[in-house]
């Protein structure tokens, strides 16, 4: 498993507080209850085409168990958003997505009243003889409520949906503060209707590209997961899973190539998404192995700006090629 390097085998170590407790005792009290379920998540995700490691799977397990939101951070193109999508299909539930952007406000994220419909309703009821209170109750009922993603996730009738709040770092701080009520109490307050509480607590996944530091209050309410660039083995596994028809040799070369490009200090280092793009492009071009020409042809899959492509060229494509062949 890719992410297991450096795991400390619990058994072999002496806890610092050894005089306070003996680990021997606690062994009998708690067996690894979560073990199997973490395994189930790893294999379930893999079945759905998402290669993961025990670290992420454990965090996902805790999301389902402790019902806490999870904040996933990492560089672009490493499958942060995918976590939510796969989790939804793994749990067999609906995915509700909110894409954040600067200036995102309550009316496009949570709810809005359907003003046109309300005005029409008032017109229609003009001669009906209803009291003002009745009219008011009518036009502020759910019939006139436009549900946006956050409210939808709270109002889900049948089962807990997965709510993906994508790129939360793009939204401004005011919106982040608004989210706190939802994240800790799973409820939303609508002044005209009162507080709406979730029937089925949604699983919430937030992603961030770290374009700005998020508030402490938000971070404290969430589990945290950092997704790093995958190791060679893990990336190989991802390529094999996503592109089952790729030749082993080509896959190894592409992965080696992208891994060495990542060392070049580009302004936008290629993620796994770029590796897959590049491999797919090479397949489409009918290449069975990587050479200088092939790299030049698919440079656009890897480098996303003029500066980056010239950086790759000046580092010497032949050198990078030799390096990536080293692993074959």
């Amino acid at each position, binding site marked *: 498993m890719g992410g297991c390097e450096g795991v*400390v*085998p619990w058994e072999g170590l002496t806890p610092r507080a*050894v005089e306070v407790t003996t680990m021997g005792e606690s062994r009998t009290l708690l067996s690894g209850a979560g073990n199997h379920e973490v395994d189930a998540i790893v294999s379930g995700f893999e079945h759905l085409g998402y290669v993961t490691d025990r*670290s992420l799977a*454990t965090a996902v397990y*805790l999301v389902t168990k402790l019902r806490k939101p999870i904040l996933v951070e990492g560089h672009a193109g490493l499958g942060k958003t995918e976590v939510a999508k796969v989790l939804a299909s793994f749990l067999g539930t609906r995915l509700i997505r909110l894409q954040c952007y600067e200036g995102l406000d309550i009316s496009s994220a949570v709810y809005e009243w359907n003003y046109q419909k309300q*005005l029409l309703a008032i017109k229609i009821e003009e001669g009906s003889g209803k009291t003002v209170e009745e009219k008011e109750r009518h036009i502020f009922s759910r019939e006139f409520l436009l549900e946006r993603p956050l409210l939808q996730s709270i109002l889900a009738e049948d089962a807990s949906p997965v709510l993906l709040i994508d790129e939360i770092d793009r939204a401004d701080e005011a919106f982040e503060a608004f989210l706190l009520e939802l994240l800790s109490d799973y409820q939303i307050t609508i002044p005209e209707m009162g507080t709406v509480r979730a029937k089925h607590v949604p699983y919430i996944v937030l992603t961030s590209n*770290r374009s700005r530091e998020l508030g402490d209050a938000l971070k404290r309410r969430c589990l*945290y997961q950092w997704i790093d660039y995958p190791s060679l083995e893990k990336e190989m596994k991802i390529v094999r899973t996503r592109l089952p028809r790729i030749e082993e040799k080509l896959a190894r070369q592409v992965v080696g190539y992208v891994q060495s490009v990542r060392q070049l200090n580009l302004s936008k280092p290629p993620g796994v998404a770029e590796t897959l793009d590049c491999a797919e492009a090479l397949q489409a071009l009918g290449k069975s192995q990587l050479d200088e020409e092939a790299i030049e042809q698919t440079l656009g899959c890897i480098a996303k700006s003029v500066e980056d492509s010239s950086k790759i060229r000046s580092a010497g494509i032949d050198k990078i090629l030799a390096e990536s062949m080293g692993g074959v």
Partner: protein
Amino acid sequence: MLGPTGQSSDAVRVIVEFCRFAREKGLSVGVQETLGALDAAAALGVRSEELKFGLRSILCGSKDDWDLFEECFQMFWRESAVEPQSSHRRPPRKEISSRVSERNPASLMSMGAGEDVSSEEDGAQTVTGASAHERLTKADFPAVPLSDLATLEQISIRLFKQMSRRLARKRRTGSRGQVDLRKTIRRSISHGGEPMNLRYRERKPRPHRLVTLLDISGSMSPYSLFLVKFLYTLQKHFRRVDTFLFSTGLVEITSLFRAQRLQDALQALSQRPAGWSGGTSIGGSLREFNQIHRRKLRSSDTLFVILSDGWDTGDAGVLAAELGAVKRRVRRIIWLNPLLGLKEYQPITSGMSAALPHIDLFAPCHNLESLLALEKHL
């Protein structure tokens, strides 16, 4: 919380002990997190290897925490009982800045101090007591003694933050103008005269893009490190910020700034061979800017800021021509010159006087006060 899981009090104690240990090492672990850790332990089992991952996702809140956790975990489970308990305890974390300085002792700040530390003008002597704040705000950056740098840094970070909050507020309230009755009525005709969609008179949009060029040549070195921090704070308030350093050549540091926290960014910056404290060619750097980065300028919404003392070893004609080319593509050019803080300063160096006709705002940036005064122009 713990009741039904049947954890032994010993297992609970180990977890709690670990949480305390992690807090001492600098993770922000409170009661909430400790309870979360216990819940995770109950769900995962104390002896499972997943417990580490679980604890990590509970106790961490950022990439820095993530790395720190690894250390804590190794330390906690490797240290044997042989070592006396108190020896490995570091003072607990009080605030973020203390933790940063602990990890990053050779702060970039000290590089900018220069030799003229001993100069005692502008009330920059070692300051104590209530007037410290006032004095430091007005003190010329290079005249601040080494011993006060830490205080000045704290004050400046606080004031920059306040400023940015005000800027943000300004933008939020100003975003919607008055109702445009004429347009509203015109639009309402299709609804039989009922004004269903209100039309608004748009405010003139404020600049959304900021392009800054900071001079890091030798003559600017007492100031440039402060100015870097100022630029870092600014980037939050524009939709897009492109930041460049120049001396004899131009270096873009936008991505460095965007991706990292201030301290990390400064450290990464100090390791770049960007020609800190070399000679200056403002005109040449501007030409390089125009050649490569011109597309980053859009006349309607770009604010172009140069921070330099105007000592140019290059051709003043080139400077004027290139600045003119920039001028045609931006909304405003602001030139911040630390020398403007000197009473007797006249912008008569050939470079500066060639540049002046193209500049919309010429302002000082020699102390904290002058930087904060820029708020109304941003």
